[in-house]
């Protein structure tokens, strides 16, 4: 089976799900609006608070905006590809995963693309708008290296995000549920991810840097771009894509391995 064949099947799945969602136009627009509102609330918080307080952990509003934009764009990229992984519990419990096994492309790809949430486009756009606005405001010396750093960081951030959804999703094949664990990681990333990790206590900060590498999603690369001191050497910001590839690879391996234990239900 060729790669182009696989890609064309994925593309058909994506088209079908977009068509499906466009059937409920009013609800669709409402969902895009609420998705945007949800993602921008965090930024409104930062903006409102920094009008009374001048800085957060030594970072100005503009610098935090950069951090926020990077994190949101990376999250949007992850959501574009993996938003459907949320439904793994249903697929496994109700036996819907059976269908993926008899079709000619890898089950994970089908899980990813069998229903793309169009509203995710709002997240990506929101992220890019904040990121672009921030980039015009902060003082960064633009060089090929810095552009590469930014792009690689976005990919790394998306991979780390994805790893901590797909890895836990593997548990569903054994325990029939992984929602709780996935929501905890999602919660941690969306709550803590857009602030300078340096404001956290040392033990928590270490966990969120070396065990669950949240600091690599946006904080460390943003600090490297801005040339800001952190609790780690500046060049660590460049490691973000590497960390992303490692944890994502581990998550994939775990998922594929666990999926062999899939026991179809109710047949």
């Amino acid at each position, binding site marked *: 089976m060729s790669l182009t064949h696989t890609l064309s099947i994925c593309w058909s799945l994506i088209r079908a799900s977009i068509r499906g969602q466009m059937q*409920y136009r*009013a*609800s669709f*627009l*409402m*969902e895009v*609006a*609420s998705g945007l*509102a*949800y993602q921008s*609330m965090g930024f*409104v*918080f930062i903006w*409102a*608070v920094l*009008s*009374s*307080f001048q*800085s*957060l*952990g030594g970072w100005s509003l503009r610098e935090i905006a950069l951090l926020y934009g990077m994190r949101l764009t990376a999250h949007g990229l992850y959501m574009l590809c993996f938003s459907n992984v949320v439904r793994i519990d249903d697929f496994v419990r109700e036996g819907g995963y059976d269908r993926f096994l008899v079709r000619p492309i890898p089950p994970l790809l089908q899980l990813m693309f069998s229903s793309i949430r169009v509203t995710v486009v709002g997240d990506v756009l929101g992220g890019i708008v904040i990121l672009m606005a921030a980039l015009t405001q902060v003082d960064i010396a633009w060089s090929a290296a810095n552009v590469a750093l930014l792009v690689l960081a976005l990919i790394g951030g998306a991979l780390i995000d994805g790893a901590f959804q797909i890895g836990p999703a593997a548990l569903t094949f054994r325990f029939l549920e992984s929602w*709780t664990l996935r*929501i*905890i990681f999602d*919660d*941690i990333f969306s*709550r*803590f991810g857009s*602030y*300078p990790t340096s*404001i*956290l*206590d040392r033990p*928590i900060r270490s966990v969120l840097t070396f065990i669950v590498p949240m600091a690599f999603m946006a904080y460390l690369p943003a600090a490297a771009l801005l040339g800001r001191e952190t609790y780690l050497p500046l060049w660590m910001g460049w490691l973000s894509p590497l960390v992303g590839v490692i944890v994502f690879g581990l998550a994939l391996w775990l998922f594929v391995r666990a999926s062999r234990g899939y026991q179809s239900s109710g047949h």
Partner: protein
Amino acid sequence: MIAPVSWRLHPGLIACTMAAIRRTWAYRTRFVLWVVRMIAQLYLLRMIWMALYAGQDMVEGIPANMMIVYLTVAMLQEFLIQPLIVFEIEQRIMRGTVASDIVRPVGFMHQMLAYDFGGILGRAPVLLVAIPLSMVVGSLKLPLTPAAAAGYAVSLILAYLISLMIWLVVGMGGFWMTSTHGLRFLLSTIQSFLAGAVVPLWFLPDILRAVLQLLPFQGMAFLPLSIFVGQATGIDILVALGIQLFWVIVLALMAALVWRRAQWKLVVQGG
């Protein structure tokens, strides 16, 4: 066809309340998750606000520890006062069961209010665990004066009524729109900000504060919380309660009006 509006306590209403309590406890593992998330969130908020204060004793006249207490109580309140009513109405309209609800001997609105109240009673025991925990993690302190304590108690009830009326109106929007999912999600996303549960109105830019003071949402969190932490004292307590009462009345009238029209809009699906 429709039961006349009366506030007599019907045994059916007690049954609705009991059903809601039992349902809340059917998913009790969620409480564990909620308590864990609450502690994590409290910890994070503490870190963020400590970093914002950055060693200053006071900003805009508000000491850092008062701020932490404010946010802790905001979180506990948010857990207690949840818009169960809007889910309930939405589900019944979408599944068409509203058709049988409406012919019951108790009015539909009253049934929904009874369910919502049952939800509160069901969740309340969780606070027995959450309050002591947040005293440790969020350094929760009880109100300073008896006046603040009494004022807060009344204010909390009014806050609940405001929330109830807002969500009741949103829920009844379903009679026109069928699915209120999008609207509900949108409002639930921004409501804690509008209510001042995320950033107290003290710290907001002037224009934003002026707008939020004209909306009913501040009565859901900001007003009761300013009484709790002792920022509103004396006559200010009464003013805050007055504003809340005003909104309860306005919103209740609105809900009654919407309900009167909604009854003629009902389309039952599949029932």
